[in-house]
């Protein structure tokens, strides 16, 4: 039986960027950090980027404003992980060859979440992160589905749905 997956945070960040920054250039899933100059000289720019891939984390999105780069992490689950990543990724921005043409610019860090809470607001404020609450209509359904995923009722309903799909030749 096939397990269906869904790209929730990819969709959340894409919708957020379009709704807030549609007039500005943006980059999604951008690797950040150093690519060794020696390696570039030895094997060329493209291959050096490829070889460095495992050592370079990936930021969800970057928006290029006239005077700022906006670094965006969107999180539905594990929100603190997203918040913790932002200052670390920010430290790598000046060393990222793909972003060299946009520097020098100040960096704004934005954490995009569907819901907030007072502790999250305190932590973000203390670490210089701008907290953005963005709740598209579809997010409730996704979160309810995940929350209910392990309940007996939901598992029965789901296995019946998958069985019907197989019977109808939709799998």
């Amino acid at each position, binding site marked *: 039986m096939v397990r269906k997956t869904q790209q929730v945070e*990819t969709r959340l960040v894409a919708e957020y960027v379009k709704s807030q920054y549609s007039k500005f250039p943006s980059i999604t899933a951008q690797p950040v950090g150093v690519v060794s100059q020696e390696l570039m000289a030895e094997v060329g720019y493209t291959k050096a980027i490829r070889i460095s891939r495992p050592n370079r984390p990936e930021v969800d999105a970057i928006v290029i404003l006239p005077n700022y780069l906006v670094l965006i992490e969107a999180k539905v689950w594990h929100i603190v992980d997203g918040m913790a990543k932002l200052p670390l990724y920010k430290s790598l921005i000046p060393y990222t060859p793909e972003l060299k043409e946009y520097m020098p610019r100040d960096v704004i860090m934005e954490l995009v979440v569907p819901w907030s809470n007072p502790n999250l607001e305190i932590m973000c404020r203390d670490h210089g992160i701008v907290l953005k609450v963005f709740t598209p209509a579809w997010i409730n359904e996704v979160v309810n589905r995940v929350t209910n995923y392990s309940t007996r009722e939901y598992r029965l309903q789901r296995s019946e749905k998958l069985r019907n799909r197989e019977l109808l030749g939709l799998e």
Partner: protein
Amino acid sequence: MVLQNHVILVNDVPARLHFTDHHIESRTITEPVTLQAAIRNTLVFNVDRLNGAPVQAVFSTMAEKLAGQFQPYLGDKSYRSYEVVITQRGDGYQRRWTVQFIPTKT
């Protein structure tokens, strides 16, 4: 005019595209890892510019991770107002895409 009907991405080489229209089509494919036949929805874009040169080509993807980055732009076809730079990285299930949306001047 570049004589190319289908845009194929090369790993780590950015491709700059301008889309004019899109549709979703069902295709029967053979899964490269499991070798099983499967029906997959494919997002297909019509391309009229590739790396600055005029073309009449299509670009398609069945990867939800890539298609998801275009999803907000599909309903109103607002991708027409952008040049899109796609850089493909990695292989198989580890494949990733960096997508840059650059608003066009017009």
